[in-house]
């Protein structure tokens, strides 16, 4: 099995900052068990399949669908090479092509969910914490990794001054945002890969 080299960062690539309207993000989960993926009540993606509550959704890993195909969700790395591949990097970093079995393998027990970027990027989430009304804004940010140039992150900005909070308070705010976001994602997510355009080269190539 060969690694799809088209998803690796490369000298010709740049940071993606263009309009991603009409594009979808894919996130995979480490189960293909429908009973863990589907909420029996809503018959949609389970909120707990979005990510674990402990992850707090502060920096949620996603992949831009297009050149990154849905099948690539099954690419998995051995823990021994996490330091080599599972790290953020510049988009034009030159990396080694991962070697099958020695460094990566096929993990069949994964499932993916898909979400329209338009439904998330710069969207405002409001929530109440005790008696306070708070807001958080969702941002989709290109965050290439050594194993995948098409890696994106969902991050949040809030109207709270997080810098002035201690870690416990910060986590508490993140927990509230995370819960609201996971619920919203679960209601918006699709379980089947959508038809999705390929990003224009000008968006990701230097020349």
């Amino acid at each position, binding site marked *: 099995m060969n690694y799809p080299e088209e998803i690796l960062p490369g000298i010709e690539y740049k940071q993606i900052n263009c309009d991603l309207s009409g594009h979808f993000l894919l996130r995979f989960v480490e189960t293909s068990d429908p009973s863990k993926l589907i*909420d*029996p*009540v*809503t018959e949609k993606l*389970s*909120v*707990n399949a979005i990510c*674990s*509550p*402990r992850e707090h959704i502060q920096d949620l890993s996603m992949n831009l669908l297009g050149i990154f195909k849905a099948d690539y969700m099954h690419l998995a790395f051995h823990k021994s090479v996490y330091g080599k591949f599972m790290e953020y990097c510049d988009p034009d970093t030159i990396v080694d092509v991962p070697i099958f079995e020695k460094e990566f393998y096929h993990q069949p027990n994964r499932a993916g969910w898909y979400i329209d970027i338009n439904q998330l990027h710069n969207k405002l*989430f*409001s*929530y*109440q*914490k*005790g008696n306070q009304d708070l807001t958080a804004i969702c941002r989709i940010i290109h965050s290439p990794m050594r194993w995948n140039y098409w890696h994106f992150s969902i991050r949040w900005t809030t109207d709270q001054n997080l810098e002035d909070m201690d870690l*416990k308070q910060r*986590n*508490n705010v993140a*927990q*509230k945002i995370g*819960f*609201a976001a996971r*619920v*919203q994602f679960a*209601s*918006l997510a699709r379980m089947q890969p959508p038809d999705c355009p390929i990003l224009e080269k000008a968006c990701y190539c230097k020349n």
Partner: protein
Amino acid sequence: MPATPARPDVILYYPIGYVDKREPYRESDGRIETYSNSITVCWDHNSGIYSENPIGGTYATPNPFNANRQFIALEKSFLKQLEQDPDFIQGANPYVLREKMKLSANAILAYAPDKISLQLTEESIFYTLIKDDITLYLQHCLVDELDGRDEALISIQRNNINLFNYGGSLPEAIVHIKNFLIPQYNPVPEFA
């Protein structure tokens, strides 16, 4: 206000949209009357049939015995999941966890959900509930992070549109739910 009942198994009629917050009660002949935020709900103890609505509209029809059935199902599911994951919360007393589950389960079953599920997640009990067109998600956090009280997170949606998100103590969260759903019984989560 109420029209005169036309059938013996029908107790009261209210116009659609009328909100009645009275507690349900049992009639001397065994009928149990409950109320919903949309229209009168009547259930005949003998026939087990819900009364028809003579003035149009749809019923929100809580069967008072459903709450009990649903509670038993939730508790079974809780115990099964706890058994499958004995390290769900390290060092926690299963009896205490079960009592905490009873508090939150009873509190939301008071809303007579059409459907409800329970899932143990990391240090939390996660409920999904559908009542009419409202979907309620409640995460009962079993390990307090702030002031020693059990915390809860709720998110309420109508037809996939987010209406309300809240995080605070469990009793406060239950109070907020009342702004969107009318309880059919009296939820008392004060001891959480």
